[in-house]
């Protein structure tokens, strides 16, 4: 009963979305506030319907209702509860339902934020949102219906793909989707502005929190996915330049550019056309990512099903939205008025440069991802574009961007003084060089680029913090005063500093991978394997049986220069229902680095193939990403960016402003 009601709620949501698309758009054209007010109400109603459908599917999973095809294919009554829940989106149909749930959630939030968005803009935005919702609801209902029933119901399900039975899966897709789908709001605002033919700093101020939020979640999602691949796939790598990873990196790069160009637009009323274009491109890349992953043109652990019908449907959606929005852009963009002027050497100029580098880097990733597909379609030749390609093209574009980052952050708006700015960074330059040299001196061995990478990372972290120091402290200022000044700096400044320092931390983590060491051997009980200073001693191999799998657990003692650090467990699992083996790497964190043990075959005589890695500072890669996202979050809490901002106007300017 509940399942059928959930199914019906989805079709109702489609009807409501059609109303949400037509009526507010019409209202905005006719200047009729009553028609426009239909937008927020339907937005809420669509969200209610889709949440109900999602809830119905979740309940079917939790109660193991095997009359639902989707549950049969991806669940098992013996599966732990958390994976019953995460299994809802651990498959194609369910993940599309989650996608659209998040879309509707954002629509509902736009609907509620009526005090901070002009009504016409809100009506048009909700209409564009509704158009996206319609397309994806049709996709779900026609090609990927999660509510298809099987009668008679099988007695047991086929279990979830073991690779996906992991806490990482419970968090990774929702984070990623909030990021992807969040950019749909920036997109909807951009299209709404194009429809209206009017765009200004108000628009930028309204859009920025959305972009910022989406960007922060996408950052978390990518970092989470990277860490999941790192420990679950057992290869010790954290980024493979796999097309599916690229599919999430591209919207991130474009979104980062969008974030920065929105700042220019908000502060200086410039770069309007470019910002609108970026908003369109960012969401287009999100859609492209969805297409690449969902259509089965790529193979990876992420692609759930190969179904040409689905592929062509999503391709249709892709062409409609990208083509349509770019056509609208070409038609309306020339009507947008150009804004403020600035000198090439200025904060704006630096941000333009940032956008150029990011967009170009994004383009090289796009080429590397699509080229093999295009070549296969055209010539039938199969190639793989792997890490060497991306290292060769992506890095040379990103490194100059990172070098310029602290400079741009320090430059003044409108017209800056390059030399003056560089002077403010003397100390930072010096310290970073010192760090790089120290690395050369202490860590002999390893490629020469690694110490330079560490230097770059240190430069980024210090350069960002320098911003706080120079704005709150000058020679002779008492520390207490400087501290209060620093605390009084706008939160968006703190957010910027944190995000940029996060980039620096990630760079340090990546550079340090050069000093990673590994060893490989077949070990018998009591034997040792060495990697650098670290050793793993195989203590015992014990079989263990859990609810839905059985495993061989190899217990290792980890030693550093002969000193025992502790033990870790590494597993070889067999998931019974699917007969599928997986490897669970054993990981021990030592400081910011990790010792990582991956198992091979467990032989009949009890010997085990073992790969041991030591990865110094590897955690910084993800900590950096967390700090970046945190920066985004702090910036979001800036009062001026908050959704209900105009309320502040009532505060008397004379009243003392409490430290925030």
């Amino acid at each position: 009963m509940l399942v059928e009601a959930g199914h019906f709620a989805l079709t109702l949501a489609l009807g409501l979305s059609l109303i949400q698309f037509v009526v507010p758009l019409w209202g905005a054209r006719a200047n009729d506030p009553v028609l426009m007010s239909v937008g927020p109400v339907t937005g809420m109603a669509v969200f209610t319907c889709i949440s109900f459908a999602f809830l119905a599917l979740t309940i079917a999973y939790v109660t193991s209702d095997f009359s639902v095809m989707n549950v049969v294919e991806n669940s098992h009554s013996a599966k732990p509860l958390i994976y019953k829940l995460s299994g809802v989106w651990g498959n194609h149909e369910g993940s599309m339902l989650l996608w659209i749930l998040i879309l509707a959630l954002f629509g509902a939030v736009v609907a509620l934020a009526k005090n901070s968005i002009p009504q016409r803009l809100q009506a048009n935005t909700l209409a564009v949102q509704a158009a996206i919702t319609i397309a994806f609801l049709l996709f779900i209902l026609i090609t990927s219906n999660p509510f298809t029933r099987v009668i008679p119901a099988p007695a047991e399900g086929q279990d979830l793909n073991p690779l996906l039975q992991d806490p990482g899966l419970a968090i990774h897709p929702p984070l990623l989707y909030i990021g992807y789908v969040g950019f749909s709001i920036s997109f909807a605002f951009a299209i709404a502005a194009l429809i209206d033919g009017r765009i200004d700093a108000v628009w930028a101020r309204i859009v920025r929190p959305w972009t910022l939020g989406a960007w922060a979640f996408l950052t978390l999602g990518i970092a989470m996915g990277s860490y999941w691949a790192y420990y679950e796939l057992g290869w010790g790598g954290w980024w493979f330049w796999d097309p599916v990873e690229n599919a999430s990196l591209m919207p991130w790069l474009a979104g980062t550019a969008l974030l920065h160009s929105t700042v220019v637009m908000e502060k200086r009323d410039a770069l309007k056309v470019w910002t609108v274009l970026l908003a369109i491109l960012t969401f287009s890349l999100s859609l492209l990512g969805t297409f690449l992953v969902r259509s089965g043109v790529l193979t990876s652990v992420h692609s759930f099903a190969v179904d040409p019908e689905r592929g062509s449907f999503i391709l249709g959606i892709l062409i409609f939205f990208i083509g349509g929005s770019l056509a609208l852009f070409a038609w309306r963009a020339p009507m947008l008025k150009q804004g403020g002027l600035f000198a090439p050497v200025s904060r704006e100029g630096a941000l333009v440069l940032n956008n150029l580098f990011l967009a170009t880097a994004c383009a090289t990733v796009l080429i590397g991802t699509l080229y093999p597909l295009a070549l296969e379609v055209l010539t039938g030749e199969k190639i793989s574009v792997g890490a060497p390609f991306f290292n060769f093209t992506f890095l040379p574009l990103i490194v100059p961007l990172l070098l310029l980052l602290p400079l741009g952050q320090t430059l003044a708006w409108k017209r800056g003084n390059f030399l003056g700015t560089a002077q403010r960074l003397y100390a930072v330059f010096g310290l970073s060089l010192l760090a790089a040299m120290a690395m050369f001196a202490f860590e002999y061995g390893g490629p020469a680029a690694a110490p330079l990478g560490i230097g770059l990372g240190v430069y980024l972290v210090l350069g960002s913090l320098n911003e706080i120091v120079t704005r709150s402290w000058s020679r002779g200022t008492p520390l207490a005063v400087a501290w209060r000044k620093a605390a009084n700096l706008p939160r968006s400044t703190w957010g910027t500093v944190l995000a940029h320092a996060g980039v620096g931390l990630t760079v340090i983590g990546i550079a340090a991978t050069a000093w990673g060491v590994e060893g490989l051997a077949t070990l018998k009980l009591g034997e040792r394997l060495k990697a650098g200073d670290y050793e793993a001693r195989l203590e015992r191999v014990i079989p263990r049986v859990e609810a839905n799998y059985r495993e061989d657990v190899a217990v290792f003692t980890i030693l550093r220069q002969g000193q025992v650090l502790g033990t870790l467990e590494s597993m070889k699992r067999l998931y019974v229902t699917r007969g599928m083996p997986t490897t669970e790497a054993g990981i021990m964190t030592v400081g910011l680095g990790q010792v990582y043990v991956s198992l091979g075959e467990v032989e009949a005589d009890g010997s085990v193939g073992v790969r041991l890695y030591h990865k110094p500072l590897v955690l910084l890669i993800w900590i950096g990403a967390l700090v970046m996202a945190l920066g985004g979050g702090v910036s979001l809490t800036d009062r001026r960016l908050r959704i209900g901002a105009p309320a502040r106007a009532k505060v008397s300017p004379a009243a003392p402003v409490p430290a925030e």
Partner: protein
Amino acid sequence: MVIWIILLLMTAAAVMAVLWPLSRHRALAAQQVDPDTQFYREQISEIERDRERGVLLPSEAEAAKAEAGRRLLRATGATAADAFAAVGEPALRRRRAASTLALSVIPIIALALYGAYGSPHLLTHPPEQQAQASGDKMDLMAAVSQIEAHLAQNPQDGRGWEVVAPVYIRMGRIDDAVKAYESAVRYLGASADRLANYGEVMVLAKDGLVSSEAQKVFEQAVQLNKASPKARYYLAVAAEQDGQIEKAKQAYGELLSSSPEGAPWGDVVRQRLASLGGEQPVAGQEDAPQIGAADIARMVSGLAERLETQGGSPEEWARLIRSYAVLGQRDKAVAAAERARQALAQNDAGLKTIDAMARELKLTDAAP
């Protein structure tokens, strides 16, 4: 019935959600402060605050304020031009049209799509019956998954495998049943009954064909117990499928004569014998398959004709060969295999498929 009432209520709620804002006649927007101008006013006061806090230099603050002021003027000019139009005859007409749209579009779309993709009929059974059915199902399911969990931990428990195998057959999981019997035989050792059951699921898994593997299993069963009726029956079927009609007739006859009166397999055996042109069947044809032999023959000849005229994949040829063998038309099976080899001469893998099928059906070694 209940489900339809619920669905109708949901639809009504959705339509009401749209009609509600349309029914509010007051022009709300008239009181609204224009957000654009509000925004710039706020910006100016904020610059003022920044200056007081010492974050901005006075000269910077003046410049910024001047710029914000210019924008404020521009925004005021822009919004004055387009006034809101919420009252009057056209507005009323628009609202009526929107209401009609909501009243028609939402129910039509929702019910049409749900009608196309939903399964409301699943819920039209009387609730008790359904509860009962699902209750039984739940018990069975729970039992099976319990046994499965137990077997996952103790795969050497042959008894468990033997218990779960017939349940698998009833659930239609034939391949699992094959594996279960295989494990049962491995861990409990061979007995005539066990082997006969094992052979039987192998036959089921091959849609009624007694493969050479299954035949070996039945032969083993007969060695252990000469009387095992099931094994003897399937061996006779195997002979029939191999085209050794006389041998099959003899085997069926012996099986019948050695069976006790009213044995449950009696009718089946008599039918098979009858189809081979042996003695007339006795009464009791209720169990006869609903698809007549003529229908099957027609389907097979249709396939043969299509393959003959239009060609087909190796899998289709293999199916045709198997069909002839199951029907006991051995000569035709051999002929079909020959033609398949000709038709697929260019296709190495196809030839392999045909050869594998021929081997499985023992079409080669039995050839005169």
